[in-house]
């Protein structure tokens, strides 16, 4: 009897404490994004929250923000190519790593994942020096290559996770029935890991779109990307248009996430 009531108190208190901490954490996580969204609808020239009056004027002002639109377009194009290359090369590499046992393959795995841990800023700077020494100037090609290096780990992680769930018996069956390696891949493996690849591709896309440390060194005015442009706007003149642009990015991210959730089961992949 006594034991039962002490357990009840324990269960309640732990749920209370953890619940409280989680609630604070969730508010903490959500608040900035929500506040930016609300502030972007302000009618005044300053970034006060809560805004005294609401208006769509800053979203309308984005219509004339030529340079911001160019930067946004650049970011989209670069993210697209980065994702494409990352998915193709990353999936291929995942296949090798998932089934390979040799030391070389293990080493390759560590190598491919290391951009996640090393300071990307140092890599961006190193890439700039490298390009410079080779006699080139920064261009879209190098920017995409740089992005691929820092984004492909995401594809690798989710694809490897999906491959680990794959029953090797299925592959053996396909091969014993006369299927070539390519056909086995196309008709058996790929469909089964498509969610993993899709989720990884989505993460790579967002990582490229949002990338700052590599773009800081490899992008210049002619290849301006959106996060750098926004950062410079914040640094140079606190413009409410930045809030409106931020609002659009939040909505864009939200929509893409919902799509990824629906079609690739994003949250399943992250578990």
């Amino acid at each position, binding site marked *: 009897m006594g034991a039962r009531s002490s357990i009840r108190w*324990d269960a309640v*208190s732990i749920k209370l*404490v953890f*619940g409280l*901490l*989680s609630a604070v*954490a*969730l508010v903490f*996580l*959500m*608040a*900035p*994004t929500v*506040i*930016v969204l609300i*502030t972007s609808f302000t009618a005044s020239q300053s*970034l006060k929250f809560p805004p005294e009056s609401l208006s769509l004027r800053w979203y309308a002002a984005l219509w004339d923000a030529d340079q911001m639109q160019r930067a946004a377009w650049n970011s989209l194009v670069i993210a697209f190519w980065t994702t494409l290359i990352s998915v193709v*090369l990353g999936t*291929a*590499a995942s*296949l*090798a*790593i998932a*089934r*390979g*046992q*040799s030391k070389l*393959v293990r080493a*390759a795995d560590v*190598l*491919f994942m*290391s*951009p*996640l*841990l090393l*300071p990307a*800023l*140092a890599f961006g*700077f*190193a890439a700039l*020096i*490298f390009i410079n020494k080779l006699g080139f100037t920064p261009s879209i090609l190098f920017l995409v*290559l740089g992005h*691929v*290096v820092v984004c492909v780990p995401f594809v690798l992680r989710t694809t490897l996770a999906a491959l680990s769930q794959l029953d090797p018996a299925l592959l053996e069956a396909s091969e014993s029935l006369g299927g070539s390696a390519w056909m086995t891949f196309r008709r058996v493996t790929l469909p089964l890991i498509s969610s993993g690849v899709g989720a990884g591709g989505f993460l790579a896309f967002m990582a490229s779109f*949002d990338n*700052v440390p590599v773009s*800081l060194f490899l992008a210049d005015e002619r290849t301006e990307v*959106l*996060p750098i442009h926004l*950062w410079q706007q*914040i640094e140079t003149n606190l413009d409410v248009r*930045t809030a409106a642009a*931020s609002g659009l990015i939040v909505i864009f*991210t939200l929509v893409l*996430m919902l799509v990824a*959730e629906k079609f690739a089961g*994003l*949250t399943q992949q*992250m578990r």
Partner: protein
Amino acid sequence: MTASGSRLALPLAALFVAFFVAPLMVLLLLSLHADVAMKTWTLDNYTKFITDRFNYSILIDTLLLGVKATLVCLLFGYPIAWLCARASARWQSVLLFLVILPILTSVVVRTFAWIVILGRQGVLNQIALGLGLVHEPLKLLYTETGVVMVLAQVQMPLMVLPILTVLSKMDPNLADASRVLGAGEWRTLWKVTLPLSLPGIIAGCILTYSASITAFVTQSLIGGARLIYMPLNIYQQAVGANNWPFAAAISIIFMVAVIAVVAVLNRLASASETYGRT
């Protein structure tokens, strides 16, 4: 697997060697020279860093900043992961969605939001003053406390996800057994759940730590001019002062420091993984 199978990793490996390893090698080489043209070898860049208190204090500050941000993330992130692991499938998806959304939103956008929140007339001060918690506006912007807060928010998903993975895979029988044997929830947490989720905690700490100390945008927007950390230092030396060799040396030192910390944490992780198996 056949050799032809492992050849599939070749294209990516080629790219990495050409565009990841090679640039880092060049960075190392440049740091050992006195000029960009790389005509004179020298160790000056490194000695300049090590002997100058100003410079290595920036490194120490940065490494400590990471520790603080990681601890805050752990304090708030573990409960979220713990609750999420116990939630129903539908709530799990919702919670995860909310946790992942911030990390996919542009870091510039999120940091910018914090400028609005932490300012003298920002939301936080409005609430604190309104509730009578303080008599004067708190100074949070351009302070290390502010930077730690924002870093913790920005990186929290990196802490939650690995812990959640481990907690979800944990055998529920173990916690049940503990309860049946008479241990309260808190004791179960301390003696069973926490030790078993240690690998996840450490994985989360590794990711959060490396992300926090290299968070250039957050550190510079929230920290201001008086709080100088390694990323800003590298940027200032590389772009502002055009001192590429010195900037290269700082970058190498920074990378070595990060690798060292991660290696230590990794060791702890492997040690903790065997813990649950005894």
